[in-house]
């Protein structure tokens, strides 16, 4: 965006999700809404540098986007506006103020939620959902999305176009959602944003392990969502979780770009202000007395965050939290993590007992065997560890994982001699 006032650009980026969301409801089309927003931005870039940034950029852009579209379709008035907003000129300060007062905040927040929800269309693959959200809501360029998701730009473009059509065709009720509908939409949207975060946090494909811009964008979306729905404790919990996880970004990569495990990280590189913010948001969320999976995971992350050194970690607290998480989210990863916490408190042989009780459910899970193997090494059973590592090898590890497992096998075999 060379040559463009960066302050104006920042205001445009900040207003984008709300403006596109409101225009999507008015035009019933993502394509038209995006186009109208673009035209509104063009008008803003002409006006704002001279007249100053309006007091309510969102309202200004919304009116400008509508007017631009109306101008274009003057002779072809198929568009129906059903929001009762007056057609207004945006030249005068007063007109803009009037419009700002006509924008219903409650309606706007459901617009943003609806737009995010449209991006989670169940017929779209996960990657297409993320691509669509990045394009429509965050305003990423196709090239940037292709780079971030490790897809060729050409095919990314086609996929986004198709995804946009599918999402637009989705029969999303345009009236105010019921409480249940709103809760269901918030759930789906939180899942999508967390997947976006994880796509950046443990980037698969390509040659880097962390794609910070995806994590940043997920955090921005969560801030937006929380700003619109300030009483949603799981949104708060998810923002807390992402902030604390992302606070470790500089410590998670070693000099060669390899991932550094939590216990070996240089904790001075953690971004303390972000951990503090996550901690506060979590405390605030827990006041509501409805702990869900995101709040519990945030509590686990916060417990790690409080430990200045790895050996100061409050493992009993972490084990209790994983136990709570197992109740609301009984998955293999959670059970394995709980076993790791058990090993830290009661030693590797107690953790092995714990794992044996899970073998029926997790026998086909790669990390069950690698975790078990490392406990077997700790309890001085390299022979059995080799068996477990070999089992892990048969379950389709990635290239890097295969390499790591083979190193471990070599280590075990050396110890057996």
């Amino acid at each position, binding site marked *: 965006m060379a040559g463009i006032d*960066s302050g104006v650009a920042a205001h445009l980026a900040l207003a984008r999700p709300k403006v596109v969301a409101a225009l999507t409801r008015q035009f019933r089309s993502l394509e038209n809404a995006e186009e109208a927003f673009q035209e509104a931005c063009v008008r803003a870039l002409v006006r704002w540098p001279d007249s100053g940034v309006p007091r309510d950029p969102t309202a200004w852009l919304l009116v400008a986007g509508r007017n631009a579209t109306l101008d274009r379709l003057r002779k072809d008035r198929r568009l129906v506006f059903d929001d009762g907003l007056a057609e207004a000129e945006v030249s005068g300060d007063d007109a803009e103020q009037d419009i700002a007062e006509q924008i219903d905040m409650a309606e706007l927040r459901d617009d943003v939620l609806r737009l995010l929800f449209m991006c989670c269309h169940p017929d779209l693959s996960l990657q297409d959902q993320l691509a669509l959200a990045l394009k429509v809501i965050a305003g990423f360029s196709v090239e940037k999305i292709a780079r971030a998701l490790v897809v060729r730009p050409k095919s990314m473009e086609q996929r986004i176009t198709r995804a946009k059509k599918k999402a637009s065709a989705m029969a999303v009720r345009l009236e105010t959602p019921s409480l249940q509908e709103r809760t269901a939409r918030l759930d789906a949207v939180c899942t999508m944003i967390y997947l976006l975060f994880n796509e950046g946090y443990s980037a698969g494909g390509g040659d880097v392990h962390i794609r910070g811009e995806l994590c940043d964008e997920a955090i921005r979306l969560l801030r937006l969502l929380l*700003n619109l729905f300030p009483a949603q404790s799981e949104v708060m919990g998810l923002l807390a979780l992402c902030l604390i996880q992302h606070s470790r970004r500089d410590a998670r990569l070693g000099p060669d770009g390899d991932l550094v495990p939590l216990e070996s990280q240089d904790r001075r590189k953690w971004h303390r202000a972000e951990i503090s913010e996550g901690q506060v948001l979590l405390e605030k969320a827990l006041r509501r007395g409805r702990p869900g999976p995101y709040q519990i995971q945030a509590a686990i992350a916060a417990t790690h965050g409080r430990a200045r050194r790895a050996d100061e970690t409050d493992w009993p607290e972490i084990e209790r939290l994983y136990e709570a998480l197992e109740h609301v989210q009984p998955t293999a990863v959670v059970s394995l993590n709980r076993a790791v916490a058990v090993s830290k408190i009661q030693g590797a042989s107690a953790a092995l007992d714990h794992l044996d009780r899970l073998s029926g459910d997790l026998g086909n899970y790669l990390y069950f065997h690698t975790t078990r193997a490392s406990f077997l090494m700790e309890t001085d059973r390299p022979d059995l560890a080799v068996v477990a590592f070999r089992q892990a090898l048969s379950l389709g590890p990635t290239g890097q994982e295969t390499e790591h497992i083979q190193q471990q096998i070599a280590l075990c075999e050396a110890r057996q001699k």
Partner: protein
Amino acid sequence: MQYAILIYASEGFFDRLPEEEQENALDQHRALQKDLNEKGALGAVAKLMDTSAAMTIRKKGDSLLVLDGPFAETKEQLLGLYLLECDSIDDAIEQAKKLPQGVAAYEVRPIGWMGGALEKPDSETD
């Protein structure tokens, strides 16, 4: 006399600026803090977290309500503040003018009473 400089802007705006502009703006903050510190005129300086982390306590009838966030739906939020010693309001205005312009509005407000001495919070920002 003591003054507060209250910093107002839209939440999330600063974060959207190019990194080098953010860094330039922070440099201006650091320069002012250094200058005021050398003169012994800096009482406190704080960057506030997002209003999403805030709560409001308000009495309604006989009960005390604890509500999420600040009440007012304003476009700009209080994002941070300085407490400083100045010779005059003109001097206070001059200090506020040294802060990065265009990224926030600065309210210069005389302090009626001030007390307290806290340690720095657990954070890396300066």
